[in-house]
């Protein structure tokens, strides 16, 4: 717990060097490279079966990679048994020891390290205090609420000042309000202890609110590693764009490329799109992602001008979301374009004609995901 936030040295604390996991013919994790900086809060995000838990269990030492190495500060820890890695793990469902009190659960890692007596007591009380559990020390896990159990699991994995804290979907058993509360709390505990947090989840909201960087995975491979805002603004693939929030996908032919921007021709309209390194060339097919909230709607008489980023359609459906409404606009070729616009500002009767438009930098070229 000694490392303060300001002393964070930007160096790689944990490196996954080409690790891979196969079960017979089944590839759970394709060859993966990942560098995690010391003190970073990094989230592995993906649907189930994406390989995120395999990565976590490999780091923790419970799954042996079929190939590759895991380096901690340059030291190879691949063959080290879990108890010699000194990593904290918060398990899904917490895995609290039911026969031990809260105090003894937190004392467990110290006991395993031969720390007893007053020295242990001080550490345990400090950890319980951070987790706001000081008054529950002598209760047993079954006497605690889900949120309190979560705190015990956290205190237990932090009491021995681990090199890393690995969290495997720790909030999946809690209700929505508690999840929100813990998202804030994890961030503040992370700031307080300065330890590297590696967090696994399938919940995009948790990933976006807590992480320094997000690693997004699908089908056993990493698709993109980026800070939350960049991941949202500049998704690399159709999967990333669709998994984090909603997205329209505009598929067309590249008309021109220049200065990291492309022009895409579609059925009856065209659009500008940023090129985030897809290597698109004129004449090739390409797909641009366009967030619904970047699409503006106007009645045909109010919409002036022509040019890219402009298309006419009719309202095919409206979903009320509270502050905004999501409009399905049917284009001339039958495709649906989603637009999220402030509620109550436009008369959105079914069949009404509207012009949709968006800014030059609103759409971005993404790689097309291979069909599953």
């Amino acid at each position, binding site marked *: 717990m000694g490392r303060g936030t300001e002393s964070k040295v930007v160096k790689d604390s944990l490196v996954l060097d080409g690790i891979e996991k196969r079960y017979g013919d089944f590839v759970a994790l394709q060859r993966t490279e990942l560098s995690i900086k010391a003190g970073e809060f990094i989230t592995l995000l993906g649907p189930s079966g994406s390989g995120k*838990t395999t990565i976590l*269990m490999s780091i923790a*030492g419970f799954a042996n990679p079929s190939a590759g190495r895991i380096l901690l500060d340059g030291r190879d820890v691949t063959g080290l*048994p879990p108890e010699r890695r000194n990593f904290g793990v918060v398990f*899904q469902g917490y895995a609290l020891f039911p026969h031990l009190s809260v105090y003894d659960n937190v004392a467990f890692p110290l006991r395993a390290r031969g720390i007893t007596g007053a020295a242990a007591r001080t550490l345990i009380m400090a950890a319980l205090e951070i987790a706001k559990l000081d008054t529950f020390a002598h209760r047993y896990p079954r006497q605690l609420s889900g949120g309190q159990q979560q705190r015990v699991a956290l205190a237990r994995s932090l009491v021995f000042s681990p090199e890393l804290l690995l969290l*495997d979907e720790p909030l999946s058993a809690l209700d929505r309000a508690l999840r929100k509360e813990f998202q804030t709390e994890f961030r503040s505990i992370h700031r307080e202890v300065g330890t590297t947090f590696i967090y696994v989840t399938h919940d995009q909201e948790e990933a976006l609110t807590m992480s320094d960087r997000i690693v997004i995975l699908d089908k056993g491979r990493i698709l993109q590693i980026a800070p939350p805002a960049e991941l949202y603004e500049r998704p690399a693939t159709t999967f990333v764009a669709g998994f984090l929030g909603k997205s329209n996908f505009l598929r067309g032919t590249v008309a021109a490329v220049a200065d990291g921007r492309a022009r895409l021709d579609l059925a009856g309209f065209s659009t500008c799109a940023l090129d985030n390194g897809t290597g698109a060339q004129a004449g090739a097919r390409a797909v641009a992602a366009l967030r619904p909230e970047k699409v503006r709607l106007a009645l045909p008489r109010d919409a002036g001008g022509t040019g890219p980023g402009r298309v006419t359609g009719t309202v095919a459906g409206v979903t009320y979301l509270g502050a905004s409404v999501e409009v399905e606009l049917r284009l001339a070729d039958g495709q649906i374009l989603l637009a999220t616009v402030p509620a109550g500002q436009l008369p959105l009767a079914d069949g009404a004609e509207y012009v949709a438009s968006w800014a030059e930098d609103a759409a971005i070229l993404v790689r097309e995901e291979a069909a599953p």
Partner: protein
Amino acid sequence: MSAVAPSQSASQGERLYWLMMLLPCAFLALLYVVPVLNVLVMSVTVPKPGLANYAELANNGAVQRTLWTTLRIGAITTGLVLLIGYAVAYALVHSGPRERQILLGIVVASFWISALIRAFAWIALLQSRGIVNSALMATGLIDSPLSLVRNELGVVIGMVHYMLPYAILPLYTNLRGIDDRLVPAARALGATPSQAFRWVFLPLSLPGLIGAGVIVMIFSLGFYITPAILGGGRIIMVAEFISVQISETLRWGLAAMLATVLLGAVLMLVTWLSRFMDVEQALRK
């Protein structure tokens, strides 16, 4: 997703686990399986190689009578036990918590009383100067004692008594697993109580009935103590017959052949049972 294989890193620990798993198996293979296989082999080698022992199945009247007695008593016992056991299990499922606890307590407790003690008690109750006959004669209902034991009736009473808990407990587990909204649902759809029972509840409890029936049959076929004591030497089932061949007439070959047939029948029943239910679950006390 979370089913990640446990670490194989601690290979010396792994070797220990293999040792822990294989040592008890070796113990059993050597001291149990080999002796039993030896008996199976003896059925075709003693007194001389060949199938002569199996020919007795067709020729020997005593052997045929014994097998027939075993099958008949086994079937009667199974039928009675299922009938009574099903009613008890049904009542258990549909009774209040207090009543259920008392009934279950009685069933479980009687489960644990040794077969010998029970056979002793039945002798005391049923013999010609026993408690039942004395009571009946004292009230003047009968003049001479009824013959209630050392015959087939006594054997069946004792076996039904012994087997009932073996049927009630798995049947109860099975019936409790039936969604209790289904019968009301059938009633709401227009079925009478008896139709709801016959069309919904009974078919759903069929696997439990088959399982319990097979278990009772398996134990009945090989049963020794109860028939030997309550049969009083007049009703001889196959287990006692085998025992007599060994200890009195020293016909090892015949005994080994009957043991093989008995084991074969039991294994067939177990294999058949394993298609309906988890055999391990069924054998758990």
